[in-house]
């Protein structure tokens, strides 16, 4: 597609459940980022992929969060044993390369609600 696509757009789950969020970046973009945006806050960095590898995962809050990008395009963010505090909008962004001068292209986000 023309832009970054994220699915699902909305996900409601119960505390303790497992959740997967998918990101399909712009074709040809090698860099992919996951951010989390809580209500009233700016996007908070989670993880950055350059190709298939995670170049920087320093933003993942704990070991319940994991992300993969096995073929260097689509990425999945996985959250185990969800907690109410995980409720947020999860944003995915891509860019042509990991270069510092390029802007990021964001998807519309996946809104996660943990009951």
């Amino acid at each position, binding site marked *: 597609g023309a832009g970054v696509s994220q699915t699902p757009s909305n996900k409601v789950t119960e505390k303790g459940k497992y959740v997967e969020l998918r990101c399909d970046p712009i074709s040809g973009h090698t860099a992919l980022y996951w951010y989390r945006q809580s209500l009233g806050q700016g996007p908070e960095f989670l993880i*950055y992929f350059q190709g298939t590898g995670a170049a*920087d995962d320093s933003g993942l809050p704990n070991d319940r969060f994991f992300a993969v990008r096995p073929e260097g395009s689509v990425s999945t963010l996985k959250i185990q044993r969800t907690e109410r505090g995980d409720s947020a909008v999860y944003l995915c962004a891509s860019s042509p390369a990991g270069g510092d*001068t390029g802007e*990021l292209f*964001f998807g*519309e986000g996946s809104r996660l609600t943990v009951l």
Partner: protein
Amino acid sequence: AQSVAQPEDQVNVAEGNPLTVKCTYSVSGNPYLFWYVQYPNRGLQFLLKYITGDNLVKGSYGFEAEFNKSQTSFHLKKPSALVSDSALYFCAVRDVWTGYSTLTFGKGTMLLVSP
């Protein structure tokens, strides 16, 4: 570490008047600076960036921003506001020298333009 401060939660301006949305940053080295806009239920959209060169940069929708190194600021401006400019605005920074390749965002400023 890199950080961004947006001191105003909300800015109110009448249509046709000039607007300013404030941003200050902190980095170890030289900054790359960005402004993004977020409309309701939409992804973040790139507005403009400062990489190097002229301190006044122009971007989409008539917006511009001025980089001031001595004040570590990158305020967003527009000479004449439109009601359609009402949205949430985020300032973001990358630190060039440390090689930190991810963007750090401020918490956002809501711009409300009244008719």
